[in-house]
């Protein structure tokens, strides 16, 4: 009949001619100072892509038929040309999902967004109550996010998303979150915490315990309407696979464009080791995606390394590359959050000074590295 073709995920691991979607951090500027910020944002980079350069990137994504971009930052709404960029993307059939802390999503902005098609909004909230959230994201950030949600609901935006990073301190609140999302007519999105950006410092304090990971796995399994961005595939070792592709898409089907145009394998590996090029290079984004040596390497067949002899390797694929890298673990070994604890000994033995530091830190001077230092939310654009 037909020749036998390898399973879809095997084909996707070899990479596509264009990403399915990509994350685009529009600015490193942010009014918040979250402990786990994966892009270590705070200060605007003076070399940020100009409006014209951003519009040209969108034209390229349109030619590549990239269906949508996940816009983030920093706080993307801080950019004064934010609406220009979003409008241009949508006019050119590149859908937009953007993540915001909500501070600048006032009634007027909510009305504007509600009138647009192909636009999806994610409000970040990392605690059901202000205390839990603000310890991580800064004082006043809970109120700002809730106000933004109220504004979207009042403007009849429809189904926006509430995005939570699962931490040791908020996983007990998942049912409350779900109810909040349901009450708003919103969708809940739960994302795995990574030790990226400022998360390198906060990871050990915030990461889930092995028991909490098991609880999260079953909680997600029981609620197929909760989105996870495919971020918990390392938990598949626990049994039946979670919904989604369940593979690391870094440099294969997804990537990151940072505010200065650097292209990285994924949003969680802002480090020279995973930098493939820059959209300002001669071949543009397309050239970087299709020809960069770094990305071509990531599309090569992977070796299981220390995981090859584990019965769960087919299910979890060894976990998340970024999480291993920023905890100082070998990339072909177990994930630091391996559900069987196979990384526990190696993790305890890692020399802290050998843990890679992000090569592009935009934290504000004196940014917090632990939750004991309170920070006030500023509502002025930096």
């Amino acid at each position, binding site marked *: 009949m037909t020749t036998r073709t390898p399973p879809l995920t095997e084909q996707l691991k070899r990479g596509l001619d264009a990403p399915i979607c990509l994350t685009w951090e529009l600015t490193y500027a942010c009014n918040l100072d979250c402990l786990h910020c994966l892009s270590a944002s705070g200060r605007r980079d003076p070399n940020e892509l100009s409006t014209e350069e951003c519009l040209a990137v969108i034209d390229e994504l349109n030619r590549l038929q990239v269906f949508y971009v996940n816009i983030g930052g920093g706080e993307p709404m801080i950019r004064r040309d934010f609406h220009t960029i979003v409008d241009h993307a949508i006019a050119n059939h590149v*859908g937009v999902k953007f993540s915001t802390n909500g501070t600048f999503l006032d009634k007027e902005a909510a009305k504007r967004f509600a009138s647009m098609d192909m636009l999806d909004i994610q409000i970040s909230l990392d605690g059901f109550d202000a205390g839990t959230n603000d310890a991580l994201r800064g004082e006043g950030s809970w109120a700002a996010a809730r106000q933004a949600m109220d504004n979207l609901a009042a403007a009849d935006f429809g189904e926006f998303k509430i995005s939570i990073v699962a931490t040791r301190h908020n996983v007990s609140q998942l049912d409350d979150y779900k109810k909040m999302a349901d009450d708003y007519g919103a969708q809940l999105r739960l994302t795995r915490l990574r030790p990226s950006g400022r998360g390198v410092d906060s990871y050990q304090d915030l990461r889930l315990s092995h028991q909490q990971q098991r609880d999260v796995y079953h909680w997600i399994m029981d609620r197929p309407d909760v989105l996870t961005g495919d971020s918990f595939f390392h938990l598949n070792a626990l049994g039946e696979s979670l919904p989604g592709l369940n593979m690391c898409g870094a440099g294969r089907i997804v990537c990151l464009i940072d505010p200065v145009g650097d292209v990285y394998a994924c949003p969680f590996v802002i480090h020279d080791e995973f930098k493939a090029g820059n959209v300002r290079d001669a071949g543009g984004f397309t050239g970087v995606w299709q020809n960069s040596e770094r990305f071509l390497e990531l599309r090569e067949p992977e070796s299981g390394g220390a995981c090859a002899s584990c019965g769960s390797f087919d299910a979890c694929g060894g976990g998340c590359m970024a999480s291993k890298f920023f905890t100082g673990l070998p990339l072909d070994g177990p994930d630091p959050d391996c559900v069987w604890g196979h990384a526990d000994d190696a993790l305890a033995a890692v020399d802290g000074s050998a843990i890679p530091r992000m090569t592009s830190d935009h934290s504000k001077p004196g940014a917090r590295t632990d939750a004991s230092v309170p920070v006030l939310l500023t509502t002025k654009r930096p």
Partner: protein
Amino acid sequence: MSSLASDQAWTLSSSIGLRPEPFGALAYHFESRRLVFLKTKDLVDLVRSLADHPTLDDALDAAGLDGRRRTSHLTALASLADAGVIELRSPIPAEATP
């Protein structure tokens, strides 16, 4: 999963972006924001041809799909219909055709 009315006229939804890939195609629904994989080129060709035929059965006949292949393609089409990738279209009255 719904069963398909194969005696009706179907079409690729106008809300869908379809991107050819070595394995078949990626379909993205710009309203529901769902991403769907069309895992064979035959299925992609069939989906693209739907609008050219008065009924789904005619499209299957034209593609030479019978027996088990017809059944498996009907199953795939039913899941595409559930995802909003394909939808029923109203037949174009003969007199409206220029």
